[in-house]
């Protein structure tokens, strides 16, 4: 072959190679993102900042229904309820205190029903499959064709309740089987109760807890009143009257015999868990949200949570502290707030007036006077600062804390959680939880696997 011929072939081969490369680059097949399944967004549950439990004081603050917490509806005043013990000297919790067992119509609302019907229809997990098989053909048909309406909802609700309650009674046996509950996260109370091999009403309650653990989204557990006795591993702290005042059930009593209200649970816990309490007072234990800047900084607009409520309290001077703050306002500011109607265009002016008054107070000597703060629950941090000998060095901080204590609804600051927001005082093990999705490559692989499974 001549030199010219070789050159021609080489040029032709190069041209072909470049053409193929050009086609390859210009086509979308190069773009890997096009074929890759999108990474699913993280469930917003993992962004939730709320605590595990709502404390009694939270309920009081939220103006919730407290009728369930009135001890003397059932008990007699000044007569300590008797305690009963089993053969192993474990306390027997009264049936009324171990929480509900059977599901009622109040437990299965529209959302719960829709979620449960969907899970039963799919019956892709062992418990849903078990429930689905326990239904008659006509019941299965009704649920399979279920569409929310007044008539069908009532029937579907009855079917779901009856199926769940059958599990709870379960011929006097625990519904738990390792294979059935594989992959289900059991709550701290459930685990603790299972270890106690309960019988009777406690067993029915255990089955209900198991059902609730199996359907955490569909049947959320909102109760606070379940008592599973498990305070302390040695069993010596399971006596009710170690913490509750036996002659006045509305009070708590720490080790030193003081009487404490339910708002002061931290002090009760601290009477035994001293080092933890010390850390908590210093802010080094437990959950907290709000502001790290607890010091001598003035109030800012972010910290007024309820301007309308604050203005209302000030202009009506409904308590001594409100009256005091009102006096610190200048006349034009008082006139502005007196005529303030939310939502109003002068909200900004009203907010500025309130902020200026509050910040003027911060620069004054301690505003604490026993009469002025009578009936106001002071936080442990405030009390601790007031007891310090070098109070003058922390006047601004002290006045801030006092104002925050006096206006807990209206001013937001450090939202220190108390012990019972995270720990169940009757079943202290910290609840385990499902971890949030891992780092990016793992999630990408998981998304691809899910996509491939769906294709199959």
């Amino acid at each position: 072959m001549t030199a010219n011929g070789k050159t021609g072939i080489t040029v032709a081969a190069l041209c072909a190679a470049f053409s193929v490369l050009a086609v390859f680059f210009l086509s979308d097949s190069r773009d890997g993102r096009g074929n890759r399944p999108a990474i699913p967004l993280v469930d917003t549950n993992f962004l939730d900042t709320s605590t595990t439990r709502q404390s009694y004081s939270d309920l009081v603050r939220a103006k919730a229904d407290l009728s369930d917490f009135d001890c003397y509806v059932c008990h007699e005043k000044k007569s300590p309820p008797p305690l009963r013990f089993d053969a192993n000297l474990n306390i027997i919790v009264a049936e009324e205190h171990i929480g509900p067992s059977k599901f009622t119509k109040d437990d299965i609302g529209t959302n719960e029903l829709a979620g449960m019907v969907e899970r039963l229809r799919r019956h892709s997990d062992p418990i849903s499959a078990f429930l689905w098989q326990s239904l008659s053909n006509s019941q299965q048909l009704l649920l399979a064709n279920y569409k929310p309406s007044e008539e069908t909802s009532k029937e579907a609700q009855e079917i779901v309740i009856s199926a769940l309650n059958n599990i709870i009674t379960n011929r006097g046996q625990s519904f738990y089987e390792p294979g059935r509950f594989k992959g289900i996260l059991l709550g701290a109370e459930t685990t603790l109760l299972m270890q106690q091999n309960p019988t009777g009403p406690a067993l029915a309650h255990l089955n209900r807890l198991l059902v609730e653990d199996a359907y955490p989204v569909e049947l959320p557990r909102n109760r606070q009143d379940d008592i599973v006795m498990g305070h302390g591993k040695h069993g010596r702290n399971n006596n009710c009257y170690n913490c509750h005042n036996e002659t006045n059930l509305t009070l708590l009593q720490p080790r030193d015999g003081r009487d404490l209200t339910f708002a002061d649970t931290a002090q009760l816990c601290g009477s035994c868990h001293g080092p933890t309490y010390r850390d908590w007072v210093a802010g080094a234990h437990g959950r907290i949200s709000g502001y790290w800047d607890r010091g001598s900084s003035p109030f800012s607009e972010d910290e007024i949570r309820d301007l309308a409520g604050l203005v209302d309290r000030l202009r009506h001077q409904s308590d001594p502290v409100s009256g005091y703050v009102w006096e610190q306002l200048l006349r034009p500011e008082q006139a502005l707030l007196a005529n303030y109607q939310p939502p109003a265009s002068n909200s900004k002016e009203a907010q500025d007036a309130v902020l200026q008054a509050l910040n003027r107070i911060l620069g004054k000597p301690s505003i604490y006077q026993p009469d002025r703060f009578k009936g106001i629950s002071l936080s442990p941090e405030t009390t601790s600062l007031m007891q310090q000998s070098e109070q003058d060095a922390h006047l601004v901080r002290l006045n801030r804390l006092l104002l925050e204590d006096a206006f807990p609804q209206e001013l937001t600051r450090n939202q220190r959680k108390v012990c019972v927001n995270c720990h169940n005082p009757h079943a202290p093990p910290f609840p385990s939880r499902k971890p949030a999705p891992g780092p990016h490559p793992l999630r990408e692989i998981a998304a691809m696997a899910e996509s491939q499974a769906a294709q199959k």
Partner: protein
Amino acid sequence: MNQPPSPPSSTPAPPANGIGRRSFLRTSVVLTTGLAAMAASLKPLLEINDFPTMQRFLQKYYKEMTPEDMAKVLKRIENEVEAQYGMRPHVRDLKPMDGVEFVYCLNLTRCIGCRKCVHACVAENNQSRDPEIQYIRVLRLPDGSLDIDKADHFYAPESVPEKGYFYMPVQCQQCKNPPCVKVCPVHATWQEADGITVIDYDWCIGCRYCEAACPYWARRFNFTKPSLPKERLNPDMAYLGNRPRRQGVMEKCHFCIQRTRAGRYPACLEVCPAGARKFGNILDPDSEVSYILKSKRVFIQLKSEMGTSPRFFYYFDV
């Protein structure tokens, strides 16, 4: 003497201008292929859809900007974000507070490895969701060991905490002696007076030297255009903090500058269900971090032998 006549040629005689049919075809094929290949190589340019505006191109260095310059820049960023996400953000340039030096303390006894901090951080700081950029990595370590080689950050059990393990979240350690700052060729990253090492995303050239220099793998690079759903945008933004980033720039944890410089706790701290994270001003003797460093006996600075002197302390309850 007469020369014999030359035999008639079978090939046509070249035209007067010297270009034959064959050479024309050959040249045109080569040229066409070359042009196609060149067009293909330039194709990535078509994917660039955020050419810098003249304002951004002429923007001054952060430390040289006057308040008026910064006001214009913040307005520009707000306009850009609004155009892209359909929501007007509130972008601020928060300055360090006097007498404040931030320190983070993490209680390894309390951490349960739930990774809620990871995702609260992603949500707060407008990080890309696809590919997902996370500033915090939670390492799972066997009990009794601090050997990072034994750490696993892809753990995925049914529930946490697991027996026999403890968890160690790692993020930017906000070093006092940050190697990432030293290597930046354009001074796009620096340490502020309150101890936070920040990045000016408009000044970063994406060379990734800082990523290589960081011993904690705390810096992340935007290899692709960040993808952030509109409904998950956090409109409370800071210039040196969580404003949306572009492709080709570095980013990292900045202690939620948009929150902490306004006196608030970082997002990872607020979401922690176990209260393992503590944050505050080390110059305030009454802050919780001062209390922890004074009263807790065991605390470690990760890879302290590197001489980075982190402002992030790990401790145990003792």
